[in-house]
């Protein structure tokens, strides 16, 4: 036997099952159709070949069920069997052909629910419409058509005969009961309410839920039941949707409302029927009892009534549809809000605020306290100042509207920043779509004349210009101003700002000019007067050692004189070293001049010339001295010179570039240790250290003497004071030169440069100390006065 298509979900099912395996919808009617006299069930007319096999099978099974059911009361006769099929049911089959064929032909896929026509024989399932084209017509659709017909055409005896209802004479008892009950319900219930699931159900609904053997009503009751519950869920959605008129849910609103409209179509139709016939009792035969029974159970709910969903008896998919959330029953979940935790809390709060639901009320509506405590806007703290300000301002200005009644929910007001993020076209489209859908009146198909249904024609047939979306953000003036500021800041990063101009004369210039003038004045005074009254310093230990070393040199020693100072210190170095060099000259020493700086060549020449001017004995001949030139490479050059001086400086820098190593006295010099004395003249402690580290270890027992600037002496003294002594003697600064001159007054004609400078040096030292002391006192006084003024100003404030 062929598979049975479920009328609700359209999925195939085995023929032997009564309910759909997927959606639990009833596949076989509870009322077994009576076999027709003219046409046995298995002998459908040729025109009824399209009747669904499932319907015929249902009839067979229904007949079987009828036999299996408990015996019913007399007044509850079985549903119509084939032989008892009323004429009105037969007429139903015929009248519904034309109405639903067009719609079902397009909407229903082939081979799903169609392809099998119901049996056209009387007594077959009364709720199924018989279609000549063997297409399936859902029963609700059949009812709708019937209702529409009843509304459009006045009741006529023929219609009464062919139509829905028969007279009391021909009506089964169950139908009568339904009608009477319906009339009672309509009379009793002024506001249309959905009674709670457990109580207040119409008898027929309750009886159906209880499972009483209302066989004749079984199918209709079950159908009524699910439809009723469907209405409950739909009404809930409807009322919730009415509460939220926010545009951001326009798109889902459309689809949801479309769904609602689709689902509510029979409900609305039923409602209309109910409203139309509630006040005036329907004439007998005009309103089918089964339809009246359905209408009696409709659910139109106010927004704030608690709805308890009762999944009992509902198909699962309907139960799921009806369930809005896993929240406790009685909690109204506004539109846009899903389970707590699924959406951003901030949006939840905002939506509530916009909807007029107080946050406290919302919190008291059942949300956990933890969620309430954890609700922190995700952007708080992260927002830049202006965005945060905008957000808070929007929240403050919009405020929390007072809770309104459930029926008058204020449309949600979005904050500016959220509003700005929404494409402008979407709202228009939604509204347009909404308007289009709402305004549209279906003109064809079985739903012709209904408003707001899904169009029968495919969208492609509806020529509609595609909507244009704008991507322009909506920004407020404040946001624009802040954005402009930010842009300016970013641009300013790459632009060089002009340095603020400084005054031409500052206190620094004044102080330096005063110090310079005072010092210059003192020195000029001493220079012009030629004063030499102040005694030279006493013989220092290091000077004494140096003098002793030179005195201990053999006659005509070969001395390596390293002129390793910069031209800027020429004045001090000349004053420091003149006496020592003159001492060497007096000893008849052969001076070999070298330097690790290029300037040392000229400095050495100048030094010897000046000394010669002072002592009256000029060193000019190559037999007296040799300027060996420049040793490049720093420490590396010193290492090479110490090991092989001939290779590093092969020629002298005289006019002839004499190879001095081949003639006396340098002929005997092979290594550094062959020199009788190495005297290093330098102002730099690092150069002195390089000579000590590279040359002194190669000198074996020969002395190394340092003639230093005053600034290099502290760092060389550890080499002099250490044991073993790496530096045998040391003459440092003007003090050392003066001490040497004082130890050897016959040197330099008695007027060495140290003697010349000593008086001016002594006086200028005192002046400098006074200047420093005065400057410290003045500076500290000024800062103390400023601090006091600042404190007084602070206290005054």
């Amino acid at each position, binding site marked *: 036997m062929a598979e049975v298509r479920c009328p609700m979900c359209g999925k195939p099912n085995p023929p032997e099952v009564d309910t759909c395996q997927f959606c639990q919808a009833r596949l076989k009617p509870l009322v077994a159709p009576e076999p027709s006299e003219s046409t046995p069930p298995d002998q459908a007319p040729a025109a009824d070949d399209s009747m669904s096999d499932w319907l015929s099978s249902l009839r067979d099974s229904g007949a079987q069920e009828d036999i299996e059911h408990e015996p019913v009361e007399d007044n509850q006769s079985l549903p119509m069997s084939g032989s008892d099929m009323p004429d009105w049911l037969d007429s139903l089959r015929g009248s519904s052909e034309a109405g639903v064929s067009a719609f079902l032909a397009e909407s229903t896929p082939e081979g799903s629910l169609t392809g099998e026509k119901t049996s056209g024989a009387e007594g077959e399932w009364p709720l199924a419409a018989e279609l000549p084209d063997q297409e399936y017509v859902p029963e609700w659709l059949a009812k709708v058509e019937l209702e529409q017909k009843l509304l459009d055409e006045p009741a006529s005896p023929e219609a009464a005969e062919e139509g829905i209802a028969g007279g009391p004479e021909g009506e089964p008892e169950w139908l009568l009961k339904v009608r009477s009950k319906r009339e009672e319900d309509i009379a009793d219930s002024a506001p249309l309410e959905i009674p709670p699931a457990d109580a207040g159900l119409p008898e027929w609904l309750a009886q159906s839920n209880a499972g009483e053997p209302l066989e004749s009503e079984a199918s209709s009751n079950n159908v009524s039941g699910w439809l009723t519950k469907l209405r409950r869920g739909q009404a809930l959605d409807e009322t919730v949707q009415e509460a939220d008129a926010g545009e951001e849910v326009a798109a889902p609103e459309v689809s949801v409302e479309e769904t609602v409209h689709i689902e509510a179509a029979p409900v609305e139709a039923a409602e209309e029927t109910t409203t139309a016939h509630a006040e005036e009792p329907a004439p007998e035969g005009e309103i089918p009892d089964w339809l009246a029974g359905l209408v009696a159970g409709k659910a139109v709910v106010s927004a704030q009534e608690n709805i308890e969903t009762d999944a009992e008896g509902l198909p699962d998919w309907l139960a799921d549809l009806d369930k809005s959330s896993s929240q406790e029953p009685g909690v109204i979940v506004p539109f846009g809000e899903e389970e707590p935790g699924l959406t951003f809390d901030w949006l939840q709060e905002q939506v509530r605020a916009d909807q007029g639901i107080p946050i406290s009320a919302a919190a008291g509506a059942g949300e956990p306290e933890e969620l309430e405590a954890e609700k922190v806007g995700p952007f708080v703290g992260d927002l830049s100042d202006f965005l945060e300000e905008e957000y808070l301002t929007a929240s403050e200005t919009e405020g929390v509207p007072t809770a309104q009644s459930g029926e008058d929910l204020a449309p949600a007001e979005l904050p500016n920043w959220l509003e700005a993020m929404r494409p402008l076209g979407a709202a228009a489209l939604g509204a347009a779509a909404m308007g289009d859908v709402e305004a549209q009146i279906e003109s064809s198909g079985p739903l012709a004349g209904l408003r707001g249904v899904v169009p029968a024609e495919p969208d492609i047939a509806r020529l509609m210009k595609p909507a244009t979306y704008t991507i322009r953000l909506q920004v407020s003036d404040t946001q624009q101003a802040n954005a402009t500021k930010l842009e300016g800041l970013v641009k300013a990063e790459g632009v060089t700002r002009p340095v603020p101009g400084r005054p031409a004369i500052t206190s*620094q210039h004044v*102080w*330096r000019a005063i*110090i310079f003038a005072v*010092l210059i004045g003192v020195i000029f005074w001493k220079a012009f007067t030629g004063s030499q*009254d*102040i*005694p030279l310093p*006493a013989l220092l*230990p290091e000077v004494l050692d140096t003098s002793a070393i030179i005195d201990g040199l053999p006659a005509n020693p070969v001395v390596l004189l390293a002129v390793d100072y*910069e*031209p*800027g*210190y*020429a004045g001090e170095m000349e004053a420091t070293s003149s006496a020592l060099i003159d001492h060497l000259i007096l000893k008849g020493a052969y001076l070999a001049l070298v330097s690790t700086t290029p*300037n040392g*060549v*000229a400095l050495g*020449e*100048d030094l010897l010339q000046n000394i010669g001017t002072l002592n009256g004995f000029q060193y000019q001949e190559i037999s007296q001295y040799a300027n060996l*030139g*420049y*040793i*490049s*490479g*720093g420490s*590396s*050059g010193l*290492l*090479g010179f110490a*090991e*092989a001086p001939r*290779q*590093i400086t092969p020629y002298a*820098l*005289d*006019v002839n*570039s004499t190879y001095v190593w081949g003639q006396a006295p340098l002929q005997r010099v092979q290594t550094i240790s062959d020199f009788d004395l190495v005297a290093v003249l330098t102002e730099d402690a690092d150069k002195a250290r390089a000579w000590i580290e590279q040359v002194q270890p190669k000198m074996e027992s020969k002395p190394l003497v340092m003639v230093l600037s005053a600034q290099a*002496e*502290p*760092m060389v*003294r*550890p080499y002099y*004071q250490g044991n073993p002594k790496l530096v045998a003697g040391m003459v440092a600064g003007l*003090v050392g030169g003066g001490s040497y001159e004082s130890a050897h007054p016959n040197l330099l004609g008695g007027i060495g440069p140290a003697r010349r400078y*000593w008086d001016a*040096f*002594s006086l200028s*030292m*005192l002046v*400098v*100390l006074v*200047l*420093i002391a*005065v*400057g*410290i006192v*003045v*500076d*500290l006084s000024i800062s103390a006065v400023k601090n006091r003024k600042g404190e007084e100003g602070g206290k005054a404030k």
Partner: protein
Amino acid sequence: MKAPVSTAIAIGVGLVVLLGYFIPIPLLTNLRGILVGWAVILAAVALFVGVANLFLVHWRKISRAPTGGVYSLVLIISLGATLVVGGLFGAASYWPVWIFKNIQMPVETSLIALLAVVLTYAAARLLRRRLNVFTIVFLATALIVLLGTAPIFGIEVPFLYGETGLRSLLTQIPAVAGARGILLGVALGAIATGLRVLMGVDRPYGG
């Protein structure tokens, strides 16, 4: 590894020179002498490269901004004149020494002389800029040494001068201790830096 040739040269040559300090083998000593000799030549050529670079920099300044390149022109003229004079007469002859003595020496000596004025001003403002124990110790030491350097109006203050004077005590004991610590620290740092180069960890030669 980037620049393996340069790294190999640096490490190889460095190891040979370093080992020569501690292993007195004649072959190693001779090889070290040769390598050091070549390094002295390269150092002088490097000085030429520096002078050439200085010339090119100021030449570009003259080419780009004729109005602002007057100083660069002076530099290039003086450089060229010195090169010509020195090239003609030699490094230690009269005229190159004359140029050195009458141009370079006065300018450089004057700049160092100005240092005295700047240092006096800095010493006077020192306590205002940074007032703490170490600044006070630093300034007090400097003043004591300066005060003990020359006699005041010809009078040598007893507690300042002489071998037992404060100045001698400061310069010969705590200053020597500090200087020795600094020298040891500098030497240790130089050893660490040098070993990093010899191991190839640091490659300051563009590797």
